[in-house]
């Protein structure tokens, strides 16, 4: 899909999607409306909205949302004057039926997300999104778990199904700028010139802005960020900070920096019932290479079973758990309980 500003970076906001994790998927419709309006007025290119685990993520496993995706999407579509309404879809969680429903109420862009080695489960979804006329993005998650060569192979699959943009997604916030740059460059070099590359960082190792910039310097033209860094784990690249840094670097975006700063501090930060920051728990995610969305579930399991959050997260990393396996958090916590019982 051709975009109106091809010479500028495409700023994809994720406050209302990845930012669902810190509020356990419980944004009210009023909160969604006011945040989306502020983002639209600050001229971000696109606003992603859905349950944190994508459309139909509202489950026991990922947490029940305060609203259905259709309601949230409709509210954003209603207030957006120019920003593209985006949704996330994980094959294996959401269905094409769900995608059609959110398309009906105004979603015009979709990121189809798979684990970075499993791109071939996205064919039906990418083909259908293209048929619907949606801007169609392939989203390769947990990119730290695959080599640049493997990512290239998987990115080519998604491109062959019809994806117009491929994201190298650091879901665990585990990559360092040099590794991020290497991966983005490899994918950029391998794909057709008209296929765009995107980057999505998490701040678990405090690399949120640094990794976004590294990705852009390696050829990415779409970049994810969120107000006040609102996102899973230690959050995403803080949007207002990114825009300030890009401005200092002389890179053009359409965004209004001061409006973004105001929205971050006035609208979003007050909603963080658990601070979104680099602390013992979120740092453990990046350090152990664990899916950032596991954080609040691991904290809940730790509380329920009187275990330590960090112990749970480190064990999940050792087990090579991937995005979507939130049920294994309970499994790990129960095993820790058993071991403790055996030791006593």
């Amino acid at each position, binding site marked *: 899909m051709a975009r109106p500003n091809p010479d500028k970076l495409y700023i994809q906001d994720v406050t209302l999607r990845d930012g669902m994790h810190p509020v356990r998927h419980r944004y009210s419709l009023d909160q969604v409306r006011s945040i989306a309006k502020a983002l639209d007025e600050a001229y971000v290119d696109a606003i992603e909205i859905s349950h944190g685990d994508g459309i*139909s993520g509202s489950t026991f496993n990922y947490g029940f949302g305060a609203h*259905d995706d259709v309601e949230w999407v409709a509210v954003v579509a209603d207030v957006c004057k120019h920003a593209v309404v985006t949704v996330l879809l994980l094959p294996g969680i959401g269905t094409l039926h769900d995608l059609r429903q959110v398309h009906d109420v105004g979603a015009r862009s979709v990121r189809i997300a798979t684990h970075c080695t*499993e791109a071939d*489960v996205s064919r039906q979804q990418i083909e259908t999104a293209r048929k619907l006329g949606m801007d169609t993005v392939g989203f390769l998650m947990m990119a730290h778990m695959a080599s640049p060569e493997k990512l290239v192979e998987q990115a080519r699959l998604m491109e062959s199904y019809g994806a117009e943009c491929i994201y190298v997604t650091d879901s665990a916030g585990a990559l360092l700028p040099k590794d991020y740059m290497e991966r983005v460059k490899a994918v950029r070099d391998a794909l057709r010139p008209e296929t765009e590359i995107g980057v999505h960082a998490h701040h678990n190792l405090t690399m949120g802005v640094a990794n976004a910039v590294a990705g852009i310097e390696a050829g990415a033209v779409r970049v994810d960020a969120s107000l006040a860094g609102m996102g899973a784990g230690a959050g995403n690249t803080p949007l207002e900070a990114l825009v300030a840094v890009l401005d200092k670097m002389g890179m053009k975006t359409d965004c209004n920096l001061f409006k973004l700063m105001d929205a971050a501090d006035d609208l979003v930060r007050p909603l963080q019932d658990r601070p979104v920051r680099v602390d013992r728990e979120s740092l453990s995610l990046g350090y152990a290479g664990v899916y950032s969305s596991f954080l609040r579930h691991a904290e809940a399991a730790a509380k329920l079973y009187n275990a330590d959050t960090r112990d749970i997260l480190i064990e999940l990393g050792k087990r090579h758990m*991937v995005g979507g396996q939130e049920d294994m958090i309970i*499994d790990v916590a129960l095993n820790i309980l058993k071991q403790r019982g055996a030791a006593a």
Partner: protein
Amino acid sequence: MMALVKCAIIGSGNIGSDLMIKIIRTAKNLEMGAMVGIDPDSDGLARAARLNVPVTHEGIDGFLKLPNYKDIKIVFDATSAKAHIHNNALLQKDGKKVIDLTPAAIGPFTIPVINGDANLDEPNVNMVTCGGQATIPMIYAVRRACKRLIYGEIVASISSKSAGPGTRANIEEFIETTSKAIETVGGAERGKAIIVLNPAEPPLIMRDTIFTLSQGGDKEAIERSIHEIVAQVQKYVPGYRLKQNVQFENIGGNAPIRIPGIGLCTGLKTTIMLEVEGAAHYLPAYAGNLDIMTSAALATADLWAGKLLAKEAA
């Protein structure tokens, strides 16, 4: 000795190959009549040929031309949902009994431990999905021990190595078919299925987690019912087991959950965590997802074949 009932398998991938080995080693009333593939170099066809099973690599058309086609009574289809619709139409014309291992869901859903003999005489029976065979018995176990089962949700995690191209092309159908069967066979008012592929090396054994929300059942009765059904499934899948104690949580009016399509709900949340270790007939033991599917299909076909033989003998 009485002749066994001849069967054929369409689809020489992971599922078809595993099923073939099971039929040869463990079936009571069945014997292999043909293995049908579309890739002349596939491991499944080579293995079938070594075991002296008639083979064709020309798909359904090649199968119809095999000299012993007319002797074959039962056909297992382990291709894909789309291919199955075409295959089934041809097979029904010739009066074959069709066991569908794809998520096409033309015939009634069949899960041996729940409704093994209810649909036995249907011309086409569907085996739901691997995740459905593993988890829906647990949904049913909770259902029969409570007054109302509002919601059933399952998460199936399988190793990437055990998911062949057919499975990967059918993720959408997996969710739709499994979700529907949670409702129609498991007895939940609303069903939701999730599947996750994990590429870890060495591959991880299939894991399944089942969450339910029920009303009007007590924890002990639910737990007892679960243990009973686990023991019954173990009769055809020995590697099927509870990995953790059954977990319960009361969801009260002060913190109700909002289930999509239903609205705010309260009740008893039950969490059941399973491991399904395969018999390592074709792929190694991690591939419990193959085992539970092929074992269920074989149990269903063997039952039907036994009845057929008994009728012929009478």
